[in-house]
Structure formats: C-alpha cells, structure tokens
C-alpha cells in the first residue's frame, strides 16, 4: 500500500513537471498549428540560461525569471524572422523541418558556448526532502508542483478574463473569424509563440536542478510533450494539464508494477491508440483533418 501511494505521489509530481512544457506546446501546436520540433530546444535553452546566470553569481530564484525572459525574447526574434516567413499555412513538413533545423542550431550554439559536459544547477531546494505521512517527495519537485500550479492557474485566468487572453482563445477557435472581427491576428500569433516557448523555457529552468544541464536534454521532453498534448486534446490547455498528470501517473504505475524496460513504449502506444480511436483526446475538439 505504501508502495502504491508513493508511486501515485511520484507520478503526480512528475506529471506536474510535464504540465508546464505541455501547455507551452499546446499554444504553439494547438493554436498556431506548428509541429514544433524545437520545443525541446527551448526547454534546454531555459535550463542553460539558468546555468549561465548561476555561474555569474545570480541566485537560482532570480535566475529563473531571467531565463524565462531570455527564452521569450529569443522566441520573439525567431517568430519575427523565421516562423512568420515560413511556417503559417504551409503545411506540416515545413514546420517540422524548420523547427527541427532550429532545434539543431540552438543545441549547437549551446554546445559551443557551454561545452559538451553536463553541468549541475544548484537550487535552494536542492537536496531537501519533504516527508508527509511516510511518503517522500524531493523539495525541488514540490517547488515545481507549486510553481506549475501557480503559473498555469494565473495563465488560465488571464486567458479567460483579459482582453488579450480572450483574443488568443478566439484565434485558436477561428482564425479567420477573429481576423474579420478586427483582432490583430499576427500579433496574437507572435504572443502565443512567445508564451509557448517561454513555458518550455520555464520548465527547463525548473527541472534543471533535477536533470542537470546538457546539450541533448531537450529530446526526452520533446517526445513527452507531444504525447501529453495529444492525450489532452489539441488546443486545450486544461486538457494538456490533465494529460500531463495522467501520463505521469501511467508511467509511474507501469514502471513500478509492470516492466521498466517497456515503459518508454507506453506513451507511444497511448498516443497511437488515442489518435486512432479518440483523436480529440480528453478535452479537445474532434478534428481529424489537421492542416
């Protein structure tokens, strides 16, 4: 029973880590229709930004928002120069290739700047543990859980209450209609992209103390985020959060009770099953045709 409870807790905690990056991908994939192969690279960028800030003496809690700002700025520049010119409305293979090449460029830059070796990132919650009813959770993970919940709730509220947020939702549901009602669609797209990759960067910064910082760190997160987004339903933010928790739980349970070495296939099997039998996922709209 103890094992089950601890496994469930592990799953939820890990899932909350996925939630942030998955919500970011929902913004870029779900709303902008870009199959963002560079999402993992932005995640890594956030982690590297935190590492570089730490190495000049900035404390972790200050480095985190700085890193997010850096990633958002980079996202802005990229949206302006690359995404806008090549990715809207050209179909998948364009976005796939361009974002893949972009990921390679970013990774090569990070490798050239910081070298191939993995670097540790020190966080104030580093090695601490929280023990609740005999269940152990690492301090940093609690921090991630709290930050995720806070950021995502704030974001959800902003989407619902603010004008800009409502405009984003409008563009997500009906870009042309939004254009006709006078919404500045290009600007909304830019903002969505910036927010989306900013979320990935935040996730990278949050997870850096746990995973250490190394050039290929984005790859695993890329796959997981796509799985989560599909499970949750395209374009649905709440779906992405739910999907993240479910994937975290499913992986933890499968790994503990069934087989460790087949666990990587679990996510993929789920994605395939969902796309074949329930493509709208948990919360998305039923749309078999996609760009």
């Amino acid at each position: 029973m103890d094992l089950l409870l601890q496994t469930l807790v592990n799953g939820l905690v890990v899932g909350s880590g996925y939630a942030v990056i998955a919500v970011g991908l929902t913004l870029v994939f779900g709303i902008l229709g870009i199959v963002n192969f560079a999402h993992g690279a932005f995640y890594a960028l956030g982690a590297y930004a935190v590492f570089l800030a730490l190495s000049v003496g900035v404390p972790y809690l200050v480095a985190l928002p700085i890193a997010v700002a850096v990633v958002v700025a980079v996202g802005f520049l990229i949206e302006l120069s690359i995404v806008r010119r090549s990715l809207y409305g050209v179909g998948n293979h364009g976005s796939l290739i361009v974002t893949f090449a972009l990921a390679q460029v970013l990774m090569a830059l990070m490798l050239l700047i910081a070298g191939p070796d993995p670097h540790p990132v020190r966080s104030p919650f580093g090695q601490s543990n929280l023990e609740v009813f005999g269940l152990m959770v690492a301090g940093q993970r609690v921090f991630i859980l709290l930050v995720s919940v806070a950021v995502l709730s704030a974001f959800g509220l902003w989407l619902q209450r603010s004008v800009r947020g409502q405009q984003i939702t409008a563009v997500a549901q009906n870009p042309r209609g939004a254009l006709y009602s006078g919404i500045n669609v290009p600007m909304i797209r830019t903002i969505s992209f910036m927010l989306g990759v900013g979320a990935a960067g935040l996730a990278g910064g949050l997870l850096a103390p746990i995973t250490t910082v190394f050039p290929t760190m984005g790859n695993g997160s890329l796959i997981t985020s796509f799985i989560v987004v599909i499970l949750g339903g395209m374009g649905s933010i709440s779906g992405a959060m739910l999907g993240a928790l479910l994937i975290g739980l499913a992986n933890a349970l499968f790994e503990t009770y069934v087989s460790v070495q087949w666990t990587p296939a679990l996510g993929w099997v789920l994605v395939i099953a969902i796309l074949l039998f329930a493509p709208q996922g948990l919360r998305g709209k039923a749309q078999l045709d996609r760009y």
Partner: protein
Amino acid sequence: MTRRTMLQGAGALALSLSVCATAFAADPVRIGLAMPLSGAAATYGNDGRQGAELAAEEVNAAGGILGGRKLELIYEDDKGTPQGGVAAVQKLMTVGRAKVITGGMNSSVVLAESSVTRNKILQVNMGAQADAITDQGSPFLFQVNNTVSMNSRAFNKYLTDVLKPKTAAYMGENTEFNKTVLEHLKASLAAAKIELVSVSTYDADTNDFTSIITKVKSQNPDLLYVSDAYPSRAAQLWKQVRQLGGFKHEAMSPGVVTPGMLKPAEGAMNGVITGEIFVASEPSPANQAFVQAFRKKHNVDPNKVHLVAYEAIKVIAEALNRAGTDSDYPKIAKVLRDNPWPTPRGMLKFDEKGRASAPYFYIQQVKDGQLVLLTQSRN
C-alpha cells in the same frame, strides 16, 4: 660535357637527393582518431582528444619515431553511430592517409569500424568495452581499455568477498554494455549465494528514476548496483537515490565513473563504491609522471578516458618504432603481442585477442565528490 658541368650536375643532384631525403624523413606518421566529437558522447571524444594530444606532444618532444618523424594526429567525428564511424574511418584511411586507426568510445561503432579495417590497417580501440569486438579475433585489432568482462570479474570479486551484502538490486540503462555487466553480476552473486531481488533496465531518455528507486527500496536490498555510462543521467540517478534515502551499500559499474559524472552529482555519489583500471592518486613514478604532466597542461586530474587515449598513442608510437615500420602490419601486430609496454598503469601486455591487461585493478570510493582509493587487487 665539361668537368665543371659534371661537377655542377653532381652537386645539384646531391643537393636535391638530400632535400628529398630530409623531406622524406620529415614526413609525419599520421594517426587517425575516429571519435564522437558531436552528439551525446561528445564529452568522451573531447577527453580522448586531450589525452591523445598530450601523448603526441611528448613523443614529438623526445624526437619522434622511425628516424625523427613526428606524429600527426588527425580527427574525424564518428557521430556516435556505426554509419558515422565507418565514414570517419574510411576518410581517415584514404583522404587522411592515416597509418593507424585509433579512437573508438562506443562498441557498436567500433564493431562497424572493425569490419572496415579488418586485415587492412592497424586499429587500436581506445575506449569501447564490448567483448564482442576483440572476440572477432582480428589480427590487426587491439584494445587498450579493459573489456566489460575483465572489469566485472575484478570488481564483483570485491563485492562478494569483501562487501558481502545479503541481497542486491540492479539498475541499469538498456545497452549491450550493461547487459553484459548484469550477466556477470548475476553469475557472481549466484556463486556467492547472494540474492538478486530486483532488476530494472531503463532507456536512454529516462531522467526520472523516482518510481524505479521507490520500487527497488520496497524490496529492501543491502546493495544497489547501478550500471550507467552516461555522466548526466548517472548523476541525476544518484541525486534521486540520495533524495529517497539511499541504500546500505551502493556500487557503480566499474570503468564509468569520471569527474564529468561526479561534478554534476554534487555530492550525491558520496559513499558509492566503484572500480577502475586507473586512479590518479596511485603513487608509482610512471603514473605520477602522466598525472603531473596532464595537471600542468589542463589544471585538472586526468580520468580514465584521458588515460586510455594517452596510452594508445604512446603504445602505437613505441610499437611502430620498435617494429621499424609504419605499414608492415603483420610485423607491428607481432611486435605488439610479443612485448610488454610501459604505461602509467605499469607494464601492459596484449593477449592473442589483442586485449591489454595491466598489473592492477583499483577499487575506489567516492568521498567529498572525489574518487579515493580503497584497495587494489592484482589481475
């Protein structure tokens, strides 16, 4: 023709001959290194490069080999894939005009490369550890590093005879290297009547081990044995082990722990026992000469990867010199097998399969983020 013209002609001929002779003598001996210079294993390629360069510098400073010829190192990126390795080795052999191929950090890559070099050129595998590589019995293929079996045998002996846990659990990445480690571990534990209560193999992209560690903890083993060669992942794993409370005895597969792994682990690996063919603190003059020279150049202690790269270049240079040729490979191979070679580890001897063995194997423990020598065993 007048005598003067003849003399002038003879003088010119003698001059041009001597220029040719010097040019020929100055023709460097090219050694080709196929290593991972990009991708996930780039850190090994980088270390290998540093070790090789130190060795080449020393050889050249001492006057070179084969009558004053200098060593020239040529690098090609094997990209960590068999295709990359094959292309790298072919390029080195043709465009690079290498006389010897070395490098090699990944077993699948070296296996692919060995089919290209077989019977064609001398290949000295620096770092890859799969037994299958040298099991092929290729006449010009040699290996400086211990194979997985050699390391496991020596290390497991310490675990079963000295540490003596009652039960053990295994965690490792799903690779050929680790599978062999696991097989040897199973055999050693069974022979010593130690129960292996849990086996978990995870894939390369895993960075969250909490579920696995929790599961292992629920079985309550005395010893946790982790087999993982990638610094960043292993560091994460140990941090998470530490956060979940750790185990009574902790061991890490021999031959993989480097400062590149200890540094990101930030103290989480303190107490872990491992084994290695090389340790920087070993006091013999040969070892210290190498360690000091490296420290002087790079301001850090060398690790095992630096060592095997250094040794490979030194042994190649010595062997070519002693054989008196840079291309008579049967002769060079014979010279390599027939003689012992002085290296920082002591005298190295190659067996019929081309595997090198040194006198000692070192058991180490991590203390304060550094590897400290516990004891050494004779091979």
